[in-house]
């Protein structure tokens, strides 16, 4: 194992999959000559050439659709959105074409495509640039959605996504690109299955269910709460859809208390689905009502203090954990 950044991990995943399969190509705004808006595709143009690392004009709907079409005839496109906020321009392709094709064609056309890029609020980018899109996309049958929080998960999930025969969204996180973590050496194949959650920290009093940018928040809060004798288990979903229900139930069966900390909005958010499934399947295990910590139900304000108040932050999570623990 060695320590690399989340950005490097994604870069390795891209390079390895491009190397492995000549049908894989990467397309998006500024991915080639500029080396990626966030430098995730750094060096790939030089290594794989302009036929496979392709800069596009600002035409999200066009190049997302190009990807779907190319997938229909056998290529395996990786489409980068500079951020998932811009994927909304391509909503029709991602929601209407990519996931419906297999059903509509009676199973003739599956669409092996990856849509990837940073998702979720970064820092003071305002309402148009701060969308957390996981709940929109996870609600669409036919799409798979993952949201890795660590370099290792980012690499393993992206590689798996490229090999999946369905449209998969890999929701990265701008605020995590420079974070570091241990990852297997490059000569060791690292594939992490979709639909497998991961216990990032063991605990016995409460399960904190999180993903993506809320994982570091949960880990920080769990460490602080340990000093107050609250033992929080941090369960990182990693995949939103498919959802690892077993891992969730295992954790809750152990702790009997749940806080879900999600990056999206409260109304119809990811946590609502998780919460519903817990009460439906293991209601008797619960010793307290589940609490969800999410964004506030407002478009993202630019002002830093208000933005902090809108986000699912450590203070809110701490309060929620104490409340479910009656501490």
């Amino acid at each position, binding site marked *: 194992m060695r320590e690399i950044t989340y950005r490097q991990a994604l870069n390795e995943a891209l390079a390895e999959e491009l190397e492995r399969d000549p049908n894989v190509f990467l397309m998006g*705004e*500024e991915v080639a*000559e*500029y080396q990626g*808006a966030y430098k995730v595709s750094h060096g790939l143009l030089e290594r794989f050439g302009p036929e496979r690392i392709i*800069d596009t*004009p*600002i*035409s*999200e*709907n*066009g190049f997302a659709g190009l990807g779907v079409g190319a997938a229909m005839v056998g290529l395996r496109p990786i489409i980068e959105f500079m951020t998932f*906020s*811009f994927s*909304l*321009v391509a909503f029709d392709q991602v929601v209407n074409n990519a996931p419906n094709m297999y059903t509509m064609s009676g199973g003739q056309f599956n669409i092996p495509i990856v849509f990837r890029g940073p998702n979720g609020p970064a*820092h*003071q*980018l*305002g*309402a*148009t*640039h701060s969308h957390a899109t996981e709940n929109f996309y996870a609600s669409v049958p036919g799409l798979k959605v993952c949201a890795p929080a660590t370099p290792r998960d980012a690499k393993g999930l992206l590689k798996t996504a490229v090999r999946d025969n369905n449209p998969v969204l890999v929701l990265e996180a701008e605020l995590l690109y420079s974070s570091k973590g241990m990852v297997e050496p490059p000569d060791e194949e690292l594939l992490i299955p979709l639909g497998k959650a991961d216990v990032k920290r063991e605990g016995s009093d409460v399960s904190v269910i999180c993903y993506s940018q809320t994982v570091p928040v949960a880990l920080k809060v769990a460490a602080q709460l340990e000093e107050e004798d609250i033992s929080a288990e941090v369960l990182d979903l990693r995949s939103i859809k498919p959802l690892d229900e077993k891992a969730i139930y295992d954790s809750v069966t152990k702790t009997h208390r749940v806080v879900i900390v999600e990056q999206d909005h409260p109304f119809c958010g990811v946590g609502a689905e998780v919460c519903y499934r817990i009460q439906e399947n293991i209601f008797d295990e619960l010793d307290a009502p589940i609490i969800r910590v999410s964004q*506030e*139900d*407002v*478009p993202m*304000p*630019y*002002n*830093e*203090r*208000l933005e902090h*108040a*809108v986000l699912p932050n450590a203070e809110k999570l701490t309060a929620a954990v104490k409340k479910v623990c009656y501490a």
Partner: protein
Amino acid sequence: MTAMQPVEQRDEVEMLSLMLLIRRFEERASQQYQAQKVGGFCHLYIGQEAVVTGAIAAVRDDDYIITAYRDHAHALARGTSANACMAELFGKETGCSRGLGGSMHFFDRQRHMYGGHAIVAAHVPLAVGMAFAIKYRSEDRVTLCFFGDGAINQGAFHEALNLAALYKLPVVFICENNLFAMGTSVKRSTSLKQIIDRAEGYDIPGEIVDGMNFREVRDKVAEVADSIRKEPHPAFLEARTYRYRGHSMSDPASYRTKQELEKYRLDDPITRLRAQLTREGKLTNEQFDRLDKQAKEAVMAAVKFAEQSSEPPLEKLYDYTYANGAKP
């Protein structure tokens, strides 16, 4: 109908001082960004000043304007105070969008500045909607829609141009062609030899203007606006210009050469208008220095104003989600 203010009478020396205000504002914004007083993304307009000042000088105060995220200058040109603009960058309640919008989302309803839009080309259909409303109410206003060279390959742009042409709507599409969309040059983004040919595809009259020349931009926009007021129709201008700084504060702009930048700097829009006015005996060096000093002072005062303004209160977080502060 509003009384028409004859365009030629906008004082050129005043317009020069507006360009200076924009330039000094942007320089100060950059410095405040580096000092972390300004957050998020910040895109500077330095080098392009003649485009917005020329266009604004050619229209009435009640005409509509709308632009993309490189928007500080458009608000300033419309008369939004440097105080309100700087306060917005600082995220303060006294900002032109109450500190909720930030650099990319400047709005000023009173001055008919309809934003500040950060999704590339998403505002072009909005401009067409505003033009639709003008025609619907039989007014003689025009809408000026500014956007970058990077916007012309979005579906929204194409759909909007077709709608405007189809319904003959009073809108001037002003493409601020600064040759780059982030690191992508027009050559690498667009199949056409020149951007202006996009207009022809929709049967919209179009022309290229020198975007570094205040007078040329003003005269061309005035001519087009005049024609639109007589009989509503869309028009397209490609203003050839250049941004001196990187795309945003985080872009080192290593995709272009020093020589290219220097070439455009020599053609600086402020220097150019100054030289024209000086040659014609309408401006002395002392006057120019005084105007520049005033611009710098106004911007310094704006920084102070922004610093001293208060943050939007937490209790108001939900006040601007639904109209009239309604809760769902």
